[in-house]
């Protein structure tokens, strides 16, 4: 495994993760459908998970991989709560377009 990492280089892993993270950030900022925004947040978190595993191999240290389990569990809990909020919005509004949420202004 370490050979492959040496071959590819840790920088390329960082570039890949940063690109994926930015795709997630732009998805959150520009998409208006709540489900797609959720998916973009997941892309952000998974980009970081990828980088954790790459760094873990780079340092020959298992802590990074264990951390990925934590962050996956947390992400799952977060999305469960988010979807519950989304369901209650859909029941009240009949739509999941986040542009419809503009009662609070000032």
């Amino acid at each position, binding site marked *: 495994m370490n050979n492959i990492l040496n071959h590819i280089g840790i920088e390329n892993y960082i570039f890949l993760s940063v690109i994926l993270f930015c795709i997630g950030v732009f998805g959150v900022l520009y998409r208006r459908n709540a489900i797609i925004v959720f998916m973009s947040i997941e892309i952000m978190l998974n980009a970081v998970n990828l980088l*954790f595993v790459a760094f873990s191999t780079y340092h020959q240290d298992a802590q990074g991989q264990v951390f990925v389990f934590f962050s996956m569990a947390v992400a799952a809990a977060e999305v469960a709560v988010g979807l519950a909020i989304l369901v*209650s919005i859909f029941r009240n509004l009949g739509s999941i377009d986040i542009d419809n949420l503009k*009662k609070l202004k*000032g």
Partner: protein
Amino acid sequence: MNTLIALVGLGVLCLLFEIINLRKLLVPATILGLLGVLALTVSEYNMPGSYYGNMIAVNAFSVSFSSLFIVLTIFLIALSHNFYESHQSKLSDFIAIKIFLLSGAVAMVSFGNLAMFFLGIEVLSISLYILAASSRLNLKSNEAGMKYFLLGSFASGIILFGICMIYGAMGTFDTTEIAELSRSAELPIWFPIGIALVTIGMFFKIAAVPFHFWAPDVYEGSPALTTATMSTLAKVTAMATLFKLLTAMNAEISYQYQIVVVIVSMASMTVGNIMALKQANVKRMLAFSGISHAGYMLMTLLSTNNSAGNLLYYAAAYSLSGIAAFAVILYVCKNRDNEDIVNFHGLGKTNPLLAAILTGALLSMAGIPIFAGFFAKLTLFSQTIQAGYLVLVIVAVVNSIISVGYYFKLILAMYTKEADKARTGTPVLIYGVAIVSILLNLALGLFPSLVMDLLG
């Protein structure tokens, strides 16, 4: 260490109370349990140590902030008895979520490992998402929950990326090892990037300008008790965590970093205070006031060696006056559809005691003497001058004067306008919380050394 285990046990116990039909005992039993946990926490004050492979590090800092959080949670739970009167069947869920939120907050100030920090911040945030959206049929609450969820998880993603960069630079999550490694001359560029990303994420959580735009909407839309939780407990927790992160990892606070902190601090105070001037909704006004207080608290980051005591004192003064103010708001705005200032008209005549308490709380936030807020600002400003940031202190003083404007708007509305309609009933717990918290605030104001000396 025992604090965390005891808190999680207490949260599970709250859920069990509902199953065995002891709902009437729930609030008193939880408060007693929390008092027990408080005693347990205080007893660890003189016994610093690290547990579970340095996952949890107990020291004076973590013990004093945990105690403050537990006291705040006791107040919040005492208030929830009255607030959830019409949702009695869900009372145990709400209280259990608040206890779990507290366990997240305690984990955030007593971490020794970045994994624990991340788990703590997520436990706190996820509990708050639930509480913000907890008024299920109210569209405003839905919207507040959704906005808070989206921006909160966005910020969590940034924090996670920052932790990843720190791990990449150091090869460990342990803060003491990171502190040692960070003293070496050659640091990979990833380390400062990671610190910057974590700081940005924490700025989101404490709602400092320019990452504040979610706060007014979320504070206005959430149920009033959740707003009280966010503006006192969650804000103070995030601020203490940012302070602890920077000190625990011995992140050498470079000149550029200090400039950023100074600018963010000035911007938070100015934007918060100026926007608060034109608000008609009290919750929204307190949201902007909270943004400006985040700006004041950020000043402690400029002299991290000796400002821990100041941060604790400021946090205690701010959050106790916040609890007192929100207790009155909960009483006045119960069964009203909004929290506009109109609701407070004539409170000075119909209910002089609560009006006096709200006045005291607002005066403390504005920084008028004999209340703790004044001495908190005084020591904070004098310390910042000693650290050599005269311009920042001048801006802060000017801002304190501006803030008197909107606090007095509410006070004048209570004493000079005619009452629209009288409120009936004297809920004992709300009165108790309001009186005890304002008295604690006064006691802190009269004897600042009680808290200041806890953290040298």
